[in-house]
């Protein structure tokens, strides 16, 4: 029973992390219909930014988290304005080629700049170790992840449903032509959303360096996870990807604990089965129009 709760706790932390990493992708895909396989590269950028700030410049960990967000968001904004906007409306093949190219470039560039070995971020002592709650070991770091990510999720949901920007965004997702007709500056909404999504990925990369490991191959290793979250969760709301992330997180941790021999097998089988049964994702509207 105790192991069950530990697995559940770790799985939820893992799932929340995946959600923060992947929700930007869900929005890009739903909003602009761009298959962005390079999403992990933005996460990696955030992770490395955080690592450099903490390890080399001595910035406190909590201060460097927003910095990781800003760095990735800035990169995302620049790339969107320079490159990605040429991809809207192109075929999925073009988008796949382009973003795979970006992934290859980012992998080699980070390898060149930072070296190919895994990078660890020096955590403050307050986040290390674990404490017991009714006999269940609760890792401090994972607890922090759950707290930060739930706050973020709530904030996201509020932004999407309660603010003017959120309603513009939803209008643009539902029908961008009509949204343009109503006087909404859709390209600008696109750019801001892309930057924000990249920023969230960067934050996720910084938070996840401890759990997922950070090395130049990060974008390739976790690409499939982000895509699973998005295809299984659908892109019509953020609850879909959120639930899909939790499912994936708990499923992966439980799979690795109970049937370690099968490894990632459980996850891939689950994904293919879900996609076969419900090609449009478990929740709501399809991602691929």
């Amino acid at each position, binding site marked *: 029973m105790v192991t069950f709760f530990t697995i559940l706790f770790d799985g939820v932390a893992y799932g929340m992390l995946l959600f923060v990493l992947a929700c930007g992708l869900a929005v890009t*895909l739903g909003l602009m219909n761009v*298959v962005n396989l390079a999403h992990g590269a933005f996460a990696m950028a955030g992770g490395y930014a955080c690592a450099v700030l903490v390890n080399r410049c001595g910035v406190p960990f909590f201060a460097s988290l927003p910095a990781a967000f800003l760095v990735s968001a800035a990169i995302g904004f620049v790339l969107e304005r320079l*490159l990605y906007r*040429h*991809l809207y409306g*192109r075929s*999925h*093949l*073009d988008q*796949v*080629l*382009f973003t*795979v*190219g*970006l*992934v*290859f*470039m*980012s*992998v*080699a*560039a980070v*390898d*060149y700049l930072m070296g190919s070995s895994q990078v660890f971020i020096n955590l403050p002592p307050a986040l290390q170790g674990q404490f017991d709650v009714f006999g269940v070991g609760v890792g401090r770091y994972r607890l922090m992840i759950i707290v930060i990510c739930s706050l973020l999720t709530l904030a996201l949901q509020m932004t999407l449903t309660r603010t003017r920007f959120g309603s513009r965004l939803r209008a643009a997702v539902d029908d961008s032509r009509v949204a343009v007709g109503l006087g909404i500056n859709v390209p600008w909404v696109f750019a801001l959303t892309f930057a924000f999504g990249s920023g969230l990925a960067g934050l996720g990369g910084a938070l996840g360096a401890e759990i997922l490991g950070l090395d130049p191959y990060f974008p*390739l290793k976790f*690409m*499939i996870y982000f*895509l*699973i979250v998005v*295809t299984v969760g659908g892109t019509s709301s953020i609850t879909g990807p959120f639930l899909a992330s939790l499912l994936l997180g708990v499923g992966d941790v439980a799979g690795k604990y109970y049937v370690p*021999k*099968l*490894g*990632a*097998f459980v996850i*891939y*089988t689950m*994904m*293919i089965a879900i*996609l*076969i049964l419900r*090609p*449009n994702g478990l929740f709501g509207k*399809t*991602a*691929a*129009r």
Partner: protein
Amino acid sequence: MPWRNRSGFGEQIAQLSRWRWGEMLFWALALMAILFFENRYLLLTEIAWLALFVLSLDLILGYAGIVSLGHAAFFGVGAYTAGLLALHHIVDEPVLALFVAGFSAMAVGFVTSFLVMRGADLTRLMVTLGIALLLRELANRFSDITGGFDGLQGIVMEPVLGLFAFDIFGKTSFIYCLSVLFVLFLLARRIVHSPFGLSLRAIRNNPLRASAIGIPVNRRLVAIYTIAAFYAGVAGALSTQSSALASLDVFSFDRSADLLLVLVIGGTGYLYGGLIGALVFKLLHDVLSSWTPQYWQFWIGLVLVMLVLIGRERMYRWVMWGPERIGRALRARGMAKEKSP
């Protein structure tokens, strides 16, 4: 030129599938490579099996419009089948083993094709990618059979057809790969110029209309996917047989992604695209990795990005500018000669 004859559909197809001098020149050059590049047989062999692999992707992507991110799955099945057959002396003769490997990949292709047919582009991408990853996990888990990360080692190849032994310079393996490529190319050429091939192109252009004129869309797609899996399996088997090695790397995502790049360099939707792409890619790879062994992937990525940004069609126009000018000049001269007497 199809518009000249108006004597029916069959004639038009026959006209389209007629051999042109450019094609003969291409294969003549490939044959000459045997004589002139004696110290580059290893590279040439790799080009030959890569070309076959790309041909396979071209069949489903260029002709039928199925975007796949996991085509390495079939390559891997073929590679491991050929490796295991040779390692355990089940089928010692390479050509026969090639067929067995091709058919086993074909079987996997047939079964998975039904999964791939569900859903639109993105779902297809995910499912194909997932299948390749799944097979990689399987190969990794059953490491007592597949050798895990170390791969299958100690494969000794018997002579081809019992006559031609593999030599250390790789001459036999190059001629062997080239002949297999040529035979399968002829078959692919026959397929894409047949009414079946035309119906595939109709499906690629508009599945809804294709089904409206009575083409059984799903059945055709399953058929071509299965055929493509056979090709990929044979390519994998060739790679194992010529290098006497099969490792987990055959299933990797990089391989599938590189494959897309190779096809796009050469151009989708015509058979020589794959062959030319394989040639250009391998030469590029050879130059880049001797220049910067660790970071060549960066430049490959840059090529991909530029390719998409500039636009594949525009690129193609630039490349074809020279040859087309020459062709036009030749034709103009020919016409002038016809008129003069």
